[in-house]
């Protein structure tokens, strides 16, 4: 591992961690604009994080070590996950150690800890949220894996850096199978990030909460880490989406002169993706929780169809 590679890795990871709340703020701001509100500004998540980090943590009396450790584990998982996704360059030494299947595993690990911590204190809301989250997750995860298999079949590799290299730096081809995978991926993204058709991130109404219900018992720095991890998760998904379906502009390994341009392209793509996400959320209504399996079943089916199409037409 050379210094150049290490620097590239470090730069991308720091960029993702620092930029994640901005992306979340941008999505919320876009949503506010679409709903004719003025909105809190794109920097609001940072203000929230600073406020939370300055407060003293309050723990429930019967909270175990698991409850205290969970935020750190979840945050670490998300940092690891985002550091194996190429953001601006395919120069990622960490990516050699973990492919897309490990990435799905990392996301699952974070989710398990989050659900366990939510159940740990023993409040009704926590276990309710955890159960709902697991219901959604156990359906979203196979769909996500299937989404990954289509580009993996095309580029003959399950490593994201190789996939991006294949898709972005070879001759331009249209892959019909990727259209299926893209639709399925958007559906999984909505479900996994607690966005509107499946969960409402802005609500604290007991009947509709999924993600928020799990965080109710957290305060101060623990809550800050959880919120930050949530923003990082959105960032990870956005980065995966860009890497798989719009990889043009990501610099090749070792070409540092392309990096400033790549950062600008990434910012533009993330801004577009965030606005698109806000638009999707504004246009759709939240569905009943029992409709979620149908929704994710659809995503799984589309991902499988993508693979089948790939095998049929070989493009």
């Amino acid at each position, binding site marked *: 591992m050379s210094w150049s590679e290490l620097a590239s890795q470090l730069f991308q990871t720091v960029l993702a961690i620092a930029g994640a709340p901005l992306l979340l703020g941008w999505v919320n701001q876009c949503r506010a604009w679409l709903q004719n509100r003025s909105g809190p500004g794109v920097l609001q998540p940072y203000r929230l994080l600073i406020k939370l980090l300055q407060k003293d943590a309050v723990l429930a009396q019967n909270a175990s070590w698991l409850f205290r450790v969970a935020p750190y584990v979840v945050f670490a998982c998300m940092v690891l996950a985002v550091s194996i996704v190429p953001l601006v360059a395919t120069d990622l030494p960490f990516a050699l150690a973990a492919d897309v299947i490990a990435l799905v595993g990392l996301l699952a690990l974070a989710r398990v800890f989050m659900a366990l911590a939510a159940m740990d204190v023993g409040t009704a809301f926590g276990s309710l949220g955890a159960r709902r989250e697991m219901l959604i997750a156990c359906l979203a995860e196979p769909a996500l894996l299937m989404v990954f298999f289509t580009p993996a079949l095309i580029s003959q590799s399950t490593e994201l850096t190789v996939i991006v290299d294949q898709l972005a730096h070879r001759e331009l081809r249209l892959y019909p199978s990727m259209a299926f995978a893209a639709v399925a991926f958007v559906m999984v993204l909505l479900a996994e990030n607690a966005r509107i058709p499946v969960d409402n991130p802005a609500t604290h109404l007991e009947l509709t909460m999924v993600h928020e219900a799990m965080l109710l018992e957290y305060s101060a720095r623990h809550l800050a880490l959880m919120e930050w991890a949530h923003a990082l998760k959105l960032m990870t998904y956005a980065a995966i989406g860009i890497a798989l379906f719009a990889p043009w502009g990501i610099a090749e390994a070792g070409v540092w002169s392309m990096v400033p341009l790549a950062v600008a392209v990434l910012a533009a793509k993330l801004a577009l993706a965030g606005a698109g996400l806000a638009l999707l959320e504004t246009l759709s209504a939240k569905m009943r929780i029992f409709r979620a399996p*149908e929704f994710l079943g659809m995503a799984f089916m589309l991902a499988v169809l993508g693979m089948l199409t790939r095998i049929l037409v070989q493009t």
Partner: protein
Amino acid sequence: MSVAAADVINLLASLLLLIAFAMLAQRRLLRLIHLFALQGFVLALNTAVVAATIGQAHLYFSAVLTLVLKVILLPWILHRLIDRLHVRWDVETQVNLSTIQLVGIVLVIIAFNLASPISQLAGTVTRGTLGIAMASVLLSFLMMITRRKAIPQVIGFLSMENGLFFAATSATYGMPMVVELGIALDVLVGVFIFGIFFFQIRETFDSLDIHHLERLKDK
């Protein structure tokens, strides 16, 4: 033929498959008609691209025919029908989506396997999409089987015709002009007759639920 043209044809074919699945899952009647019009549009576009790729003039006529008949005329008739029957906002509730989707995937696998030996025999540039064409025919068939209301069944029938047309395009560059015109006329007349049937069914049973037809005698 260039690689880009083949890519575009494959992409449009995949879009058709996507639309077929969307129709299978769509509960609302109005959206179903929109999807049917979209399917016709993609079909016309695909035919035009194939025509441009291989330079066959008669395929342009089929494309225009598809556009006029399946994107403009038939959806317009269907819109008029659902307005007259007051079922514009009808929602089909008894659709078990998960099972239907699984059956749909199995159908797609069967269709792809069935089509692969045929497409190896065919000499056309579009032979790869034959599997998708067969899959859309089977999916439309599945949609006809699973729906209870009369109008979605008819839309399923029409989209089955779309799938057959697509199969003809991908296997043999379309049918002879006379056959194509004949089928177009048949479909048009068929829709008129179905329209009359709808009114008759509703007059007799006070609903458009096909299951009422299973009973042969009055109680």
